[in-house]
């Protein structure tokens, strides 16, 4: 066994379920991608909105599962102690999984209005808002799971070694739970509703989730590069400082056109224009650490995911975010395919990839080996490139669609109606669909990589130790 603390093993089911939901997310992504060009595909059995909420909610839930798995793996190791209550983590896994499954079944089996009725949305209406479509009882379930999780993680950190990585992770996770509470606030006044909705959505992805991202990235880099913790922690603090300094008031980039005062066009533009800085720092940081590495960790795939996260997060969030964040630009691009283009690359680059990075690092260890065989790693790296190149193409095609849409519908002298414009840019949606199929192929290859015999062959073993692997050396000394 190569992991130090028995209780780290509770992370495994979280990672497996995360990947399962990832598959569901992509399958439904393909369904809505097809409905874009084949309007009545699966209609009326699965209308677009239903498949879309499965796509986005599966995404969010699997990312949360991955974060929890990451925390259960990483915190005992950082704290140098067993998890406070491993059984609670396992129990909460099942609660979370069953709640997610029931919710998706509800989406697919009954009309949404019926789901709202049978889950008592009347008592505390929270449904029917983008990303927050879950029935109120599911939301309450999420709160329960999150509280149990935070208790477990918090107690573990309290009783053990306190590192910057686990502290930053904990702050991110507490923030995640706190800002989720705004999803229960749904006033009739639409401007208030929208204003506070962003406290969940924006302050998640451009605030507290970035703390989680930074902490996990720092952890993986410490492990695979062996660089001095002090240096990595200094970077981590600086990155998350820039994140929150720019990102909190950066929320203003959503307050331009929803009824809020016009001064937000200034506050939002200025601060959100600075939001790419922490992402850029992350890229510099990741490459620096890998260049300064003091060991060659045998898990090349994990290093690739870590570097990929930094680059793609910068491109998707930083570059594609900046593209439409200034108010005079956003006036034309608001709520167009440009938004969708950015949403895809940012979510993939930052949060999908950091999850795949920690999974890539931790799962081989949880399966009793420091790294997978060369062959398994090569297949995993193929999956990396297939998925990453596909998302780049999805983003480029949607950006093309978006530019034409904005021009034809909003900018030209004779603006055309929405549906007419959608017809004219159909080609881009077909191309997006093709790129989506490429993504699915990448995902299949990714899953296949787990089934390739992972043990290092005898021939590979000595080579590994010759590379000066830290753990290899320690084990050799102990033996």
């Amino acid at each position, binding site marked *: 066994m190569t992991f130090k603390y028995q209780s780290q093993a509770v992370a495994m089911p979280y990672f497996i379920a995360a990947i399962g939901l990832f598959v569901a997310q992509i399958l439904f992504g393909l369904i*809505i991608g097809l*409905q*874009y060009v084949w*309007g*009545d595909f699966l*209609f*009326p059995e699965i*209308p*677009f*909105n*239903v498949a*879309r909420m499965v796509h986005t909610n599966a995404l969010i839930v699997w990312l949360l599962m991955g974060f929890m798995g990451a925390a259960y793996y990483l915190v005992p190791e950082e704290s140098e102690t067993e998890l406070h209550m491993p059984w609670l983590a396992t129990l909460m896994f099942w609660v979370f999984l069953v709640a997610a499954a029931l919710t998706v079944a509800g989406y697919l089996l009954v009309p*949404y*209005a019926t789901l*709202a009725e049978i889950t008592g*949305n009347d008592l505390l*209406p929270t*449904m*029917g*808002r*983008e990303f927050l*479509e879950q029935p109120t009882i599911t939301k309450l379930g999420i709160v329960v799971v999150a509280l149990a999780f935070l208790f477990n993680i918090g107690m573990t950190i309290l009783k053990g070694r306190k590192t*910057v990585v686990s502290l930053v992770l904990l702050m991110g996770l507490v923030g995640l739970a706190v800002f989720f509470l705004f999803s229960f606030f*749904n006033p*009739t*006044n*639409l*401007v*208030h509703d929208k*204003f506070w909705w962003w406290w969940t959505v924006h302050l998640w992805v451009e605030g507290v989730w970035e703390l989680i991202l930074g902490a996990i990235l720092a952890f993986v880099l410490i492990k695979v590069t062996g660089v001095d913790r002090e240096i990595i*922690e*200094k970077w981590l*603090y600086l990155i*998350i*400082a820039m994140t*929150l*300094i720019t990102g909190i*008031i950066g929320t203003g980039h*959503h307050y*331009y056109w*929803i*009824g*809020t*005062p016009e001064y*937000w*066009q200034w506050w939002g533009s200025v601060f959100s224009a600075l939001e790419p800085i922490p992402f850029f720092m992350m890229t510099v940081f990741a490459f620096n650490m890998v260049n300064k590495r003091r060991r060659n960790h045998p898990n090349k795939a994990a290093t690739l995911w870590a570097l990929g996260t930094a680059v793609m997060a910068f491109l998707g969030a930083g570059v594609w975010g900046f593209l439409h964040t200034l108010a005079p630009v956003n*006036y*034309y691009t*608001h*709520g*167009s*395919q440009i*938004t*969708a283009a950015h949403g895809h690359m940012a979510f993939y680059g930052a949060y999908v990839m950091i999850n795949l990075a920690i999974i890539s690092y931790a799962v081989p260890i949880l399966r009793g080996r420091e790294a997978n065989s060369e062959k398994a790693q090569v297949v995993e790296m193929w999956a990396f490139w297939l998925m990453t190149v596909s998302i780049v193409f999805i983003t480029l095609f949607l950006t093309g669609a978006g530019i034409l849409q904005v021009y034809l*519908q*909003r900018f030209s002298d004779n*603006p055309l*109606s929405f*549906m007419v414009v*959608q017809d004219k840019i159909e080609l881009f949606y077909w191309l997006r669909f093709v790129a989506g199929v490429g993504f699915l192929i990448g995902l299949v290859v990714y899953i296949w990589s787990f089934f390739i015999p992972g043990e290092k062959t005898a021939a590979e073993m000595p080579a590994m130790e010759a590379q000066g692997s830290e753990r290899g050396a320690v084990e050799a000394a102990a033996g």
Partner: protein
Amino acid sequence: MAQAFTKEMSRNIFYGGTAFFFLLFLALTFDTHLALPERDNRAALDPATERGQLIAQGKQLWEENDCIGCHTLLGEGAYFAPELGNVYTRYGNSKEAIMGFIKGRPKDGIPGRRSMPQFNLSDEELAAIAEFLQYVSEIDTANWPPNIQG
């Protein structure tokens, strides 16, 4: 010299910067809420009036049928179907036209065309949704969308 910039300094920037900008954000939030009555068309929402009650019902119907899963409303939502924040003006300030459109959706969709479900709403419910959409169109959105097409 090597220690010119320490971990403690970056930690302090993090805590200090976060606290400062969060407080500034709270102040802006407070100010926004003072300014909103002039912009958010809240007069229409007065629950003592029939219109206010209708709009509240309309918003709930909007949510419980997940209209946002296909449409944008003031530019937020899904990008599959037309913007509805200004549909009231696009439909010539006619609630009847909006109600007629929603009511007239064929149960099995329109072959080959992006389709909107038939929600089987009562006339009263249709009126509530239309009233809600009129209320939304009267919010001061700093001149967004750029034109009537949304």
